[in-house]
């Protein structure tokens, strides 16, 4: 069973000749955490939009190949302030915006919103005006707004960009617990150091195509380090001209030293 299936997908934005994605085949099942890595413009954001069903429906453009989605998807985009609904004057109402649009009964909305606020540890912000929040607080409110809609496929584009290290760790813990509940997670991040502990699979994108796909140990391979996508530990090991295979994490490195 799969929650998301992309089969030989190619996608062009409007008025462009070169595809933003080319021949992508990818499966994400319940409980999977798949991480997209790549340099800016490699197509990770576009791939998430296609997975969410927003490209080409909202962005315009053209898609070849097939996309199958077994369930409802929710996507968290990179800049939090453009994702505020603009219709809510408290954080609680902001988080409730999605569930209310789905036409759920009031008690179901309350339950899901309260649960999402607790998960993101923003219960104390519930009655604040979203316009007065910091970037990090806003990021959590936006994630809560998506989780409150109870999506089976969670798509995250740079979910930790606005967060401090502690906030980022909390989001990664949350991602693991979502997968534990059987949700499928597809994410794009430049925080590659977090991935060995979070992701089940890594997809390396380059110029809209999949360059490599595999276990998180991929992030310690020479080619990825060359492209600037290796973990810090692997990069250091390589820069110090120590012998391959490079260690993936600090723990691996310590074991190698002993």
């Amino acid at each position, binding site marked *: 069973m799969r929650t998301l299936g992309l089969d030989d997908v190619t996608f062009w934005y409007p*008025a*462009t000749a070169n595809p933003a994605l080319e021949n992508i085949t990818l499966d994400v099942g319940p409980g999977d955490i798949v991480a997209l890595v790549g340099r800016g413009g490699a197509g990770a954001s576009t791939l998430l939009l296609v997975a969410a069903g927003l490209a080409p429906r*909202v962005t315009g453009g053209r898609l070849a190949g097939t996309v199958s989605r077994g369930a409802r998807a929710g996507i968290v985009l990179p800049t939090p302030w453009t994702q505020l609904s603009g219709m809510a004057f408290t954080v609680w109402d902001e988080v409730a915006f999605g569930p209310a649009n789905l036409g759920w009964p009031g008690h179901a909305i309350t339950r899901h919103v309260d649960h999402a606020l607790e998960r993101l540890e923003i219960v104390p912000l519930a009655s604040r005006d979203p316009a007065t929040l910091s970037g990090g607080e806003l990021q959590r409110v936006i994630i809560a707004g998506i989780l409150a809609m109870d999506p089976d496929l969670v798509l995250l584009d740079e979910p930790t960009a606005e967060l401090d290290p502690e906030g980022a760790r909390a989001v990664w813990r949350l991602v693991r617990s979502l997968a534990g509940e059987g949700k499928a997670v597809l994410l794009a991040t430049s925080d590659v150091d977090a991935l060995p502990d979070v992701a089940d699979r890594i997809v390396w994108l380059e110029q809209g195509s999949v360059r490599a796909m595999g276990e998180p140990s991929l992030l310690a391979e020479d080619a990825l380090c060359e492209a600037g996508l290796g973990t810090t530990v692997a990069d250091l090991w390589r820069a110090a001209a120590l012998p391959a295979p490079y260690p993936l994490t600090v723990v691996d490195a310590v074991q190698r030293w002993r």
Partner: protein
Amino acid sequence: MSVRLLALIPVTVAISLALSAAVDAVALPLFLDTTGTILATALAGPVVGIAVGVLTSAVNTLRNPTFWPFVVVQIIVALYAGFATRAGLFRSLKTAVPTGLGLGVIASLTSTPISYFVFGCTTTGGIALTTALGRALGLPPLGACFFGSFVSDFGDKAVTFALVAAVLHALPRRTAARFPLALRAMGAT
């Protein structure tokens, strides 16, 4: 209306209202308060433009209720900009500026009766002063009122049209192509 055009409306209204800060900084006698209306029309047609115009008036009204009757002017501006878009008149400054001057005449013809009958020609300070000047020059009351509106609208609309043309040409083609009318407004059909 698609969600994308829906999202365009609040943003363009906010553009109209935020530009006053830029105008103040360079101390020019302009309003630019129809920029959003004209821009939205050039990107997505007069229906979206009218929505932007009405909302701009509504938000202005919250700050100063005497703005509301001039909602009629915003609607006329959107309709006029709709013709300019179909004719591709945003293709260069050479076509955009005269089109804006034409709108200056039409906008002041529209605002004069409102200004005269509703407010006795006392709307914003500047218009009231030019109206007083018109009276001093011996113009009849309605003529003086038109003179006041015309002086303030003429340059404003020409600059607004020039600004919208500049914005359209500065948009990456890929972005412009995502709005239904942007390429046509630039005469590129």
